[in-house]
């Protein structure tokens, strides 16, 4: 039998060996390990509707005022009460990072960069990095309840719930897809009991042990075998916790995803969770739609924040809210806005240097150089805040070091 310690140790060592190249340092990483929830705003949000007020732009949305919530300026309007409500309640634990330069206007490339820092998307995203560092031995360290995540070399620690919660059909025989006698493939079904499953594992372990002694001694072959074993073990634990994953056939909206996420965190099934807010933000026509979309988004974020408080998870959890890009400062011919490569992001939760906005977007939403430690755009070591620094900073905010995966100084101004 291959021990749990054996395979976990070897996998971690492999990851360190194969992904190195940049020396690991703990400098600029938050002291306390925190869980990470990413809320990906799919489609490209128009930050001018909320966290990046530009009242002097000709294309600025309807607004009542640029309100200051602590030191965070926010564009507010009576038609978007949830935005106001969120910051009224949670500004002290929230921070905004401006001037993130994604340097692309392609959905998929921007998405990869905002998640992983890399245009290829080959690296792990911040959720995977954080989960791998803090909770490698959890049943599903990185739980992907939304559509989007990039796990790269850390695929083994991730798992998906499925667009319709179909993981449940794999976890619980009572939630399996129905079988019909009229089907040419009908059968009664088979679920190994405890003794039978033990016998199956003994057989598989013996085969795997022989494989490791031959083709699987080293390198990527060894990693595939170790991943295979680790996956079986984690899968077995998940089956024991099947009741916490909802049910098959449920379309997972934002609130459903939040519920699954918090349950998984609360029960130590996962450390990081990836949520996707697929609300239809890619609006090239009628930019006013962005207002109601963001109103819905911030309503969901308020519910998430309140749920974290109710479950006593807030201090241990960081939430990052970001889109792959923003939208142009001007309207196009269809009263919409197209893709823009400079954006802003919101973080809130434990360990956040809240009540402040860091960095800046210029008048035409261009990225302003910023001091990564202070967030000042006026003085200090002013540098371009690109997606690598954003991802490294997000990992650092959750107490994890991203340097084995991306060679960038982290943006740390928002670490409290």
């Amino acid at each position, binding site marked *: 039998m291959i021990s749990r310690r054996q395979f976990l140790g070897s996998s971690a060592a492999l990851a360190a060996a194969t992904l190195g190249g940049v020396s690991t340092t703990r400098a600029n990483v938050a002291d306390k390990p925190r869980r990470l929830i990413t809320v990906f705003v799919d489609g490209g949000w128009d930050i001018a509707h909320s966290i990046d007020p530009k009242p002097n732009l000709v294309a600025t949305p309807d607004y009542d005022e640029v309100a200051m919530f602590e030191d965070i300026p926010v564009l507010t309007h009576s038609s978007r009460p949830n935005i106001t409500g969120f910051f009224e309640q949670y500004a002290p634990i929230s921070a905004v990072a401006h001037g993130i330069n994604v340097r692309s206007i392609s959905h*998929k490339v921007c998405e990869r960069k905002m998640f992983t820092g890399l245009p290829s998307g080959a690296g792990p995203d911040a959720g995977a990095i954080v989960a791998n560092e803090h909770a490698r031995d959890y049943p599903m360290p990185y739980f992907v309840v939304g559509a989007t995540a990039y796990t790269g070399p850390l695929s083994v*620690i991730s798992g998906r719930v499925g667009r319709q919660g179909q993981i449940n059909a*794999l976890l619980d025989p009572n939630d399996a897809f129905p079988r019909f006698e009229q089907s040419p493939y009908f059968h009664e079904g088979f679920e190994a009991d405890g003794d039978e499953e033990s016998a199956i594992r003994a*057989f598989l372990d013996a085969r795997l042990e022989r494989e490791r002694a031959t083709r699987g001694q080293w390198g990527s072959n060894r990693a595939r075998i170790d991943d295979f074993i680790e996956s079986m073990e984690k899968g077995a634990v998940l089956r024991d916790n099947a009741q916490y994953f909802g049910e098959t056939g449920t379309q997972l909206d934002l609130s459903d995803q939040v519920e699954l996420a918090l349950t998984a965190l609360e029960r130590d099934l996962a450390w990081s969770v990836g949520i996707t807010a697929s609300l239809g933000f*890619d609006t090239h026509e009628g930019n006013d739609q962005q207002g109601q979309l963001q109103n819905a988004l911030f309503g969901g974020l308020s519910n998430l924040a309140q749920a974290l408080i109710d479950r006593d998870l807030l201090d241990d959890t960081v939430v990052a809210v970001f889109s792959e890009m923003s939208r142009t400062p001007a309207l196009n011919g269809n009263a919409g806005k197209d893709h823009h490569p400079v954006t802003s992001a919101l973080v809130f939760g434990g360990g956040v240097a809240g009540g402040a906005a860091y960095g800046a977007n210029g008048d035409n*939403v261009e990225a302003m150089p910023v001091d990564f430690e202070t967030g000042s755009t006026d003085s200090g070591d002013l540098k371009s805040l690109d997606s690598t620094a954003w991802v490294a900073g997000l990992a650092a905010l959750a107490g994890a070091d991203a340097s084995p995966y991306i060679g960038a100084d982290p943006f740390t101004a928002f670490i409290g």
Partner: protein
Amino acid sequence: MKRTTWMIWTAALALAGCSEGPAGGEGSGASETDPGSGTTGTSEGETGGEETGADETGGESTGETEPEPEYLSPDEHLVRISMALRGTRPSRSDLDAVRQDPGLIPGFVDAYMEGPGFGETIRDLHNDALLTSVDGQFPALAPLDDVQPFAISDSVMDTTLRLVERIVVEDRPYSEIVTADTWVVDDIAAAVYGIDDGGSGWREVPIPSGRPAAGILSDNAFFLRHESANSNFHRGRANAVSSALLCLDYEDNNIELDEGIDLTDADAVATALTTNPACIACHDTLDPLASHFFAIVGNPMSNQITEYPLPDLYIPQREDDWMDSTGRAPGFYGEESSDIGTLGALISTDPRFTACAARRFYAYFLRTDPGDVSSDTVDTLDAVFTESDLQAKALIRAIMLSDEFRIAAASSEDSADEVQGYLRARPFQLARTIEDLTGFRWELDVQLLQPDAGAGVLDLVRSSSIGFQVLGGSGDSFTVLGSIDTTNATTSLFVRQLAAEASSFVVEQDAMADEPRLLSSGLVTEQEAVRAQLVELFDRIHGEAVEPDSEDVSDALALFDAALAASGDPARAWKTTLTAMLRDLGILFY
């Protein structure tokens, strides 16, 4: 690309409303294959086993400073070839043949490319670049009001890949994928487009009049998938074409905003695109490429579908609409062009077209990123491809017989990280493997669930929206791109359940058949009979020739005995044993 529409298409497929047609019309029964039936015949001694494999790629593996990796044995090589080309195991007789004579392998490569399964492989290969295989929904309107919405979508969105498949399978020059004057449709797609040819099944039909002949560039599915937000003047489509067919992806380039451009002034932005060096680096070639696509409706699914046939998505009168937008005439990297027909012809003769195909084919079969394929390998394969008059099978043959494709393991720890000795099976390959071995398809007939529903059978392995394609490790061609090359908890759970379902089917159904596929001796319990059946199972399921007293067989026997002792039921004992063998590492990796 506008995502909103697709989110609507793919939203809320509650189980009560789901269906999907079977993934293909091909059978996948375990067949005995005649290696001499291939198109190029068998050249004895051409592969020569472990030491002297015929490497037609001429890649870097022969470098003197690199330690030679360990290669697959001939029968292991045949398993890998068979899985890669058709998603199934070789028959036992095929395996025996190459154990006796490794020189038969090239013949088997050719034979497998003529058989069932190869077509689906070609579709899957090309979907990595074209990304048209998405789950969506088309409304069930007359004359398709008795068909499930996403069964309609499956057919409509499959036409591009079906055309490519047909060209490759029928040994036509690969350039036809951008020059063909035909569509490939089935009955559903024909109804959607109003094609009344009297045919049935997937078939080739002439493209509608008024639309230039350009293979997949004339096909609707590619442009339904790659929509255009009209305000971006089809640049996204231009990049999709460039990326898929030339391996030239404009999106790889960083965009550096020039602070001197007033981004709030549309005229200033338009001027910059033709004068500013930072802009023209891409737009000088991207915009003329995009100008080919103005006649194709930008976001056709933004309007509610109210009837079939659909209005024509190609509007010739709009071909010159570029004049009122970018002002860039259609062109192809400096060469004059006029419409998608001339574009297809120009692409077909561009050296980047064949090189890109070589790169993508190799990357697909070696399970690596196209960008990681060395230029030497691309050059060598490109030469093979070109010299064959663009026969895709010649290109594939060279890959199958290359040294790189035979690698089993590193020979030392020093180089082990760079050597990929296991290739991960994708979910559709697992589905084919399981069906071939056991006769089982994991599917859900929606009309059995809901008798009043339209017709449609959901393939639970190949569906991403309701089934397990993404949980099993593949993408959905839309939000999840690419496949993972290892396992995680959800892929493990998927394989576990698939194995249990198939094993149960085998014992309850297949074992009772006149000619069982797996349990040829039935539900035997006597030790020697069990051992003998296990030997057959290792050979058939894993391609492993094991002795009755080997550790593998002894371990499997111990498993069987333990299961029988636990339940006292031979049927459960065989279900348990088969489940274990179908959950083995060798099922998921080849």
